[in-house]
């Protein structure tokens, strides 16, 4: 009898006697695949929104071109409007690079450029939002504290005065903190601590996505809400990209969790579509608070693989400083819900702890100054021995870039830690470009192997900042953010250890000559970088 030839389609007997199924080769291309990923319909939503925006853009541009063809007067009008817009650009506080890009765009596309400028410029369309925030702050100003304690270190004193001026954000002296060098550690701690919540739990995240982390946390939140704990949850409507399913939201709401989206994403060319809530805040009973780079999704605890190892960081504070996070949250809540309530029951609940000076601050439409950017500039400017930055996106303006260079020239050990694996290729190309430009000035740049570094941590010899603020124009101008500024020696030491460990797992990049093609591409991307 002839031997059977090998047939990749094998048969397996299962079920009833004689019944078989034919098993084929799997389409899985990888050697191993983690099965905990959940797939939302976010991609579909994004596609629909993107398509609608594109259609509207095409209609707008076509309309302008038609108008230009039919009415000579319109061309003259649009030229004058674009010139006026260019003059306005020159008068703003944008960086020189940002202004150059806009002026170039306005003059090259004068027939429609001024309209895009108006749509993108924050002030006219966020004026009402600012007024609303101002009204909320005016109504609740009795809860603001602005005393600056006596601080020995003149650098801390200056920073404290800065935060008092722009906030006011006070210095908290009876607050302890703990640094977490990963999202896993932070959420493990949070899941333990949240069990003890008795009065209220406030959460504010940019990204919330179905998965094991949200499933576990939701179980606790629903239980707490049913037991009478005041559970409130703000999430950015664009952040999750559809991965925070309606089913999960419904379950949470039915259990009594109060859920509110920030800046609802509608399939229309919304004038404020660009402004997002990038904060990450958890407050438990006014006694414990968390912040950092982490969002509520499985990739932040490495339960899902997206871009290699996900490196993140965060901080927990306990003590009177938690009040500042409570205030940031409640004001955001009032802005979204128009519910005017007395904040007093939610404040001054924490025990005073032995601690070192710590400042909690926020940034966004609720503040006039660009606090996130200025806080970094203040911190960097006072570094005397070391200045370490850990960021996913490094698109500094001239001020920050020059400051880092001057610090390096003055002998400060300046180091930058960025990812090896990008999540956004164009932004990463720019990050690498900016980073490599610093190499010739003695700044050391490290790329963490097999990782996407999502943490936003800045460390100097006298203080550190851990929060949600990236070094790019989105974080500085177009998002609500928050962070903790600390001079606590224990936390500084923990952060320093984390940096040392990360440098050990990184490759230090060296100066190299770029090819002509690379120079052209990076030059083009550099022009666009203020818009990224």
């Amino acid at each position, binding site marked *: 009898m002839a031997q059977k030839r090998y047939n990749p389609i094998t048969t397996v007997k*299962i079920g009833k006697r004689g019944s078989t199924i034919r098993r084929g080769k799997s389409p899985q291309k*990888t*050697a*191993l695949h*983690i099965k905990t990923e959940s797939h939302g319909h976010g991609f579909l939503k994004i596609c629909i929104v993107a398509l609608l925006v594109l259609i509207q853009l095409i209609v707008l541009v076509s309309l302008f071109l038609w108008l230009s063809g039919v009415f000579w007067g319109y061309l003259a009008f649009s030229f004058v409007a674009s010139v006026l817009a260019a003059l306005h650009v020159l008068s703003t506080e944008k960086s020189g690079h940002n202004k150059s890009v806009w002026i170039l765009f306005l003059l090259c596309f004068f027939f429609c450029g001024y309209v895009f400028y108006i749509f993108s410029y924050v002030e006219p369309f966020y004026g009402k939002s600012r007024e609303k925030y101002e009204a909320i702050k005016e109504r609740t100003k009795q809860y603001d504290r602005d005393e600056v304690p006596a601080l020995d270190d003149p650098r801390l004193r200056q920073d404290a005065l800065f935060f008092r001026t722009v906030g006011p954000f006070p210095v908290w002296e009876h607050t302890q903190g703990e640094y977490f060098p990963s999202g896993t550690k932070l959420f493990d701690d949070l*899941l333990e601590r949240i069990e003890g919540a008795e009065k209220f739990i406030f959460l504010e995240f940019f990204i919330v996505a179905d998965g094991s982390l949200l499933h576990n946390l939701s179980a606790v939140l629903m239980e707490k809400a049913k037991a009478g704990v005041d559970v409130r949850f703000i999430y950015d409507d664009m952040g999750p990209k559809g991965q925070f399913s309606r089913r999960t939201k419904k379950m949470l709401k039915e259990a009594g969790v109060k859920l509110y989206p920030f800046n609802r994403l509608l399939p229309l060319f919304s004038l404020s579509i660009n402004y997002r809530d990038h904060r990450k805040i958890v407050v438990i009973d006014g006694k414990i608070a968390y912040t950092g780079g982490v969002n509520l999704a499985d990739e932040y605890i*490495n339960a899902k693989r997206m871009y290699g*190892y996900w490196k993140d960081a965060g901080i927990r504070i306990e003590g009177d400083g938690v009040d500042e996070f409570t205030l940031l949250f409640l004001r955001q809540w009032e802005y979204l819900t128009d519910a005017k309530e007395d904040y007093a029951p939610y404040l001054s609940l924490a025990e005073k702890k032995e601690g070192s000076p710590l400042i909690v601050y926020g940034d966004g439409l609720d503040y006039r100054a660009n606090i996130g950017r200025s806080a970094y500039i203040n911190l960097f400017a006072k570094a005397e021995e070391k200045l370490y930055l850990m960021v996913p996106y490094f698109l500094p303006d001239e001020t920050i870039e020059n400051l880092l260079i001057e610090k390096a020239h003055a002998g400060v050990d300046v180091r930058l830690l960025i990812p090896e694996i990008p999540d956004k290729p164009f932004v990463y190309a720019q990050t690498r470009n900016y980073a490599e430009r610093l190499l010739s000035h003695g700044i050391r740049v490290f790329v963490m*192997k097999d990782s996407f570094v999502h943490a936003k941590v800045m460390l100097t010899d006298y203080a550190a900042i851990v929060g949600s603020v990236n070094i790019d124009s989105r974080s500085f101008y177009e998002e609500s953010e928050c962070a903790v500024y600390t001079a606590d020696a224990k936390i500084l030491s923990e952060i320093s250890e984390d940096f040392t460990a990360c440098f050990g797992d990184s490759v230090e990049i060296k100066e190299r000559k770029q090819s002509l093609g690379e120079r052209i591409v990076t030059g083009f991307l550099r022009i666009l970088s203020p818009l990224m």
Partner: protein
Amino acid sequence: MREEFSKEKIALSVKEDKADYIKECYPCFGWTLTEEWADRKFFDLRHLAFERAWNIPHKDRLQYLQVRMEMRFNRIQTCQRKKFAASSSLFFALGVAGVLFLAGGSLLLLSSRLVGGIVLSTLSALSFLGMAIGGPLLVRRENRRYAEQVSLLEREIVEFCQEGRRLTGGEDGTKEI
């Protein structure tokens, strides 16, 4: 931590030819195999489920090593998939070119266009010769290159697993997997 969160779980679908090796690697990072089953639809897939305590010491470091190990397995798979991509493409391209030149040359010769016919026939012969000589050379080169890459990746897997074992307090850290 409440009981239902006290164990971390992970479930994988792995290629059958690597399943046994992967089964030995995950315990280096503190995981214990809880379930294993063959896929009902695909003969080359196996499913593995592991769990470990949520508060395992050195968790961050173990996670980092584990992810890097997973990436190395997937890169080995990619190497194996793409191993003969270049030589196959060249073989195919030269083969098609050779056939086309031969067909064209024959037609021209049949229609008494000698010069054109000879030129195309020569090109056809050169294409087939290129296939015969260049193909095996390229195959050998690709074999060597991917073998080096795979060997490096496998060494890195062993290093990560050994470090994992040291951190989890496993057996002799220098033992090969």
